[in-house]
């Protein structure tokens, strides 16, 4: 439809814009209307104005105090990811100490056990990463890109004893609802190990917690968040072990 056709029935269009601002159109209607909004400044302005009303709706609900466990779990996950995301090199000593102190505090709580487990396994690999180059590194292998989407990916797997760090570059961008998942292949079975997302430049460093002893390869797939017990897509990368 042209702009004039959209605006021919302006009352109806304005009603649609209100439903759109509220998130009450179905997916195809939303997509159709967005095509027009993208090209129409007056409709964009109208949506902005309606959104200012929608933005007030959350404040109308009964205000509650979130449980402390929510903040603790969130920050534990975020700090672990901040460190694995390649900032390890620039994180300062006192912060790292704090991070471990927080972790120690968390471990006292059974409710947070799951998170602690994840943080710990990531933390172990990060510990290796922080140790710096060379030391205790048993080997560096190239990972093979699988399939055309991964053609330009370059990746290496850095082994440290019984865990490893995967370095990837120029990985295909993920959709909003996806993560990359790291798997360890052992006797034909894929075991989930960790997940990661890309930096803005398409690179990432992912922890591959052990055990790696007796395993055949490390693989990477793209998965719907938050990742599951089994891969749902074809692997993009494979790094042989052993």
């Amino acid at each position: 439809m042209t702009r004039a056709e959209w605006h021919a029935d302006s009352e109806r269009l304005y009603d649609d814009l209100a439903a759109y601002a509220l998130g009450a159109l179905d997916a195809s209607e939303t997509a159709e209307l967005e095509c027009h909004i993208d090209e129409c400044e007056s409709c964009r302005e109208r949506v902005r104005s309606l959104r200012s009303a929608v933005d007030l709706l959350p404040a109308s609900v009964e205000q509650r105090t979130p449980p402390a466990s929510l903040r603790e779990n969130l920050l534990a996950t975020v700090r672990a990811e901040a460190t694995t995301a390649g900032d390890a090199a620039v994180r300062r000593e006192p912060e790292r100490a704090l991070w471990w102190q927080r972790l120690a505090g968390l471990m006292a709580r059974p409710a947070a056990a799951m998170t602690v487990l994840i943080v710990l396994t990531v933390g172990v690999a990060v510990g290796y990463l922080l140790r710096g180059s060379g030391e205790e590194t048993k080997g560096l292998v190239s990972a093979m890109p699988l399939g055309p989407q991964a053609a330009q990916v370059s990746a290496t797997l850095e082994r440290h004893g019984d865990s490893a760090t995967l370095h990837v570059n120029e990985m295909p961008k993920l959709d909003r609802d996806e993560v990359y998942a790291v798997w360890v292949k052992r006797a034909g079975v894929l075991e989930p190990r960790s997940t990661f997302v890309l930096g803005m430049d398409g690179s990432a460093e992912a922890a591959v917690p052990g055990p790696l002893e007796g395993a055949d390869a490390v693989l990477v797939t793209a998965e719907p968040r938050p990742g599951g017990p089994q891969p749902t897509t074809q692997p993009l990368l494979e790094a042989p072990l052993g």
Partner: protein
Amino acid sequence: MNPTLTPEALQRLADEDLMTLVERKDADAFAVLYDRHGGAAYSLAHRIVGDPEVAEDVTQEAFLSVWRSGARFDATRGSVRSWTLGIVRNRAIDALRRAASSAPKLDLDDDAVLDTKPGEQLTDSEAIRRETSLRVRGALGELPAEQSEVIGLAYFGGFTHSEIADMLGMPLGTVKGRMRLGLEKIRATLAERMGAKRSSEVLP
């Protein structure tokens, strides 16, 4: 990185500046954002899913998504707060739909904008948050029930306009018209009172 930023300095940053740090994976900046908006986010999730544990999961998922996809925040399209609460709302509606497919339980008479409860012991910022909430609720309470009903079903219930039309036995056009009238009224009466951004703008 900003190795020189103290916690006090982070507290003074605007949300948009904190987001820039969050995009660079600054966990301390993220903690400040959570402390500013986590309460509102959890309250919204709780309102939508009606269960404290699911609300906690939903809020956690939403904030992790902010952390992991901060680069997708676009300051020209709205505030960090409304972007974050939009993510919370979407995740909560998803959770609601998953739950509804096994055990539907949605009370149509549950009027989102009118339920009130006295607070217990509150910190200062929580007290302000609750006071704001009461003011917004008061203003929304002035809406004709037919308008707040369709707005509540869409925003808190996650229903599309055609589902609402079916539910209430009304033509589609009527449902959308009520949404528009209600939103325009909220904008007109509340945006000014709350000192919200862009409140002085006039519709084209």
